[in-house]
C-alpha cells in the first residue's frame, strides 16, 4: 500500500465521512433550532472539516517542500532546508514578484491550518470549495515544478 495520499483520495474520504455524519444529523433533525443533538452533530462536522483542512494543507506543504528542495544545489542544503520555517521554504519554492499573490494566498492557508491544528479557533468550512481551490493551487505548484 502506498503511504502517500493525494488530494483526490482526501476528497473521496471526506465525502464518505461527512455524509455519514450528516445522515445522523438528518435522522435527528427536528424543527427546534436549539436542539442539543443538532448542535453536537454540527460541532462534530466542524471538527471533521478542520481535520481535513489540516490534511489538505499538508498536501500543499509537501508540494512546496519538493519545489524548494529542487532549488537547492547540494544534499546538505536540502537537509538544512527541512529545519527552515514554512515561510522561508515557501519563499524559496515560490520566489519572485510574479508569485506574490500565490504566496499571500498560501500564507493565509498556513495560519488557518495552525488555528485548526492547535484547536485554538475552529472555523466553519465549505470544504468542497476548499478542495477546488487547493486543486487550483496544486496545479500552479505542479506548473512551477515542470518549469525549466
Amino acid at each position: 500500500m502506498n503511504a502517500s495520499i493525494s488530494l483526490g483520495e482526501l476528497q473521496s474520504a471526506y465525502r464518505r465521512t461527512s455524509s455519514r455524519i450528516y445522515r445522523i444529523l438528518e435522522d435527528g433533525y427536528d424543527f427546534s433550532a436549539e436542539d442539543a443533538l443538532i448542535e453536537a452533530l454540527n460541532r462534530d462536522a466542524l471538527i471533521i472539516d478542520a481535520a481535513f483542512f489540516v490534511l489538505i494543507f499538508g498536501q500543499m506543504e509537501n508540494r512546496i517542500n519538493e519545489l524548494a528542495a529542487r532549488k537547492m544545489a547540494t544534499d546538505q542544503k536540502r537537509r538544512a532546508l527541512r529545519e527552515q520555517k514554512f515561510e522561508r521554504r515557501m519563499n524559496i519554492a515560490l520566489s519572485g514578484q510574479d508569485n506574490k499573490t500565490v504566496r499571500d494566498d498560501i500564507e493565509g492557508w498556513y495560519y488557518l491550518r495552525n488555528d485548526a491544528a492547535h484547536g485554538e479557533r475552529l472555523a466553519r468550512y465549505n470544504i468542497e470549495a476548499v478542495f477546488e481551490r487547493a486543486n487550483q493551487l496544486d496545479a500552479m505548484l505542479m506548473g512551477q515544478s515542470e518549469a525549466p
Partner: protein
Amino acid sequence: MIGNVVSDTIAERRETPTRKRTLQRLRDWRSRVHGLYDQIEHALGSDYSYDRTGKHQSAEERVQQSGLNPDDVPPIDILRIEQSGRLVAVIQPRGLWIIGANGRLDLVLTPRTGGRRLFMLMDLSSPMENRTDWRIVRPSDGLQQLVFKPERLRELLE
C-alpha cells in the same frame, strides 16, 4: 469563481473585525437571505403559505469580537413554508462567516413520505461582492454544489 471566495474568506479571517465592517457584512447577509426568500415565495406561489415571524440573530465569533450587543445585530427571518396547514420546509440561517462560502442556510424538508431531508444553501459569492451565487448541497448524499434555482424547490417539496 470558487477560488476567490476561498481566498477572500481566508484573508478576511486574518483581519481584525471592526464594528463597522461586521455590521456591513450582517446587513448584506440579511439582504441576500431575504432576497432569496422573496424569490422562493414568488417561485412557489400561492399553493403554499409562508411564515417569516421567527428570527435568527448571529452570535458568531466575529460578532462577539466586534463588540456588538445582541440589539445591534440585525435579525434575519426564518422561513417556514406550509401547504394546507402542514409544515413542509424550514429555511434557517446557520452562519455567515465560513471559509469558502459567503453564508449558509439549512433547508429542512418534511416530505409526505415521512422523515426529514437536510440540505444546505450556500452562497459562493465573495464577501460584499454585490451578487449572489446560491448553491444547494445535500450533505448526506455527497457534496455536489449545484446552482440553486428557487423554482426547482417545488420538486423537492412534492
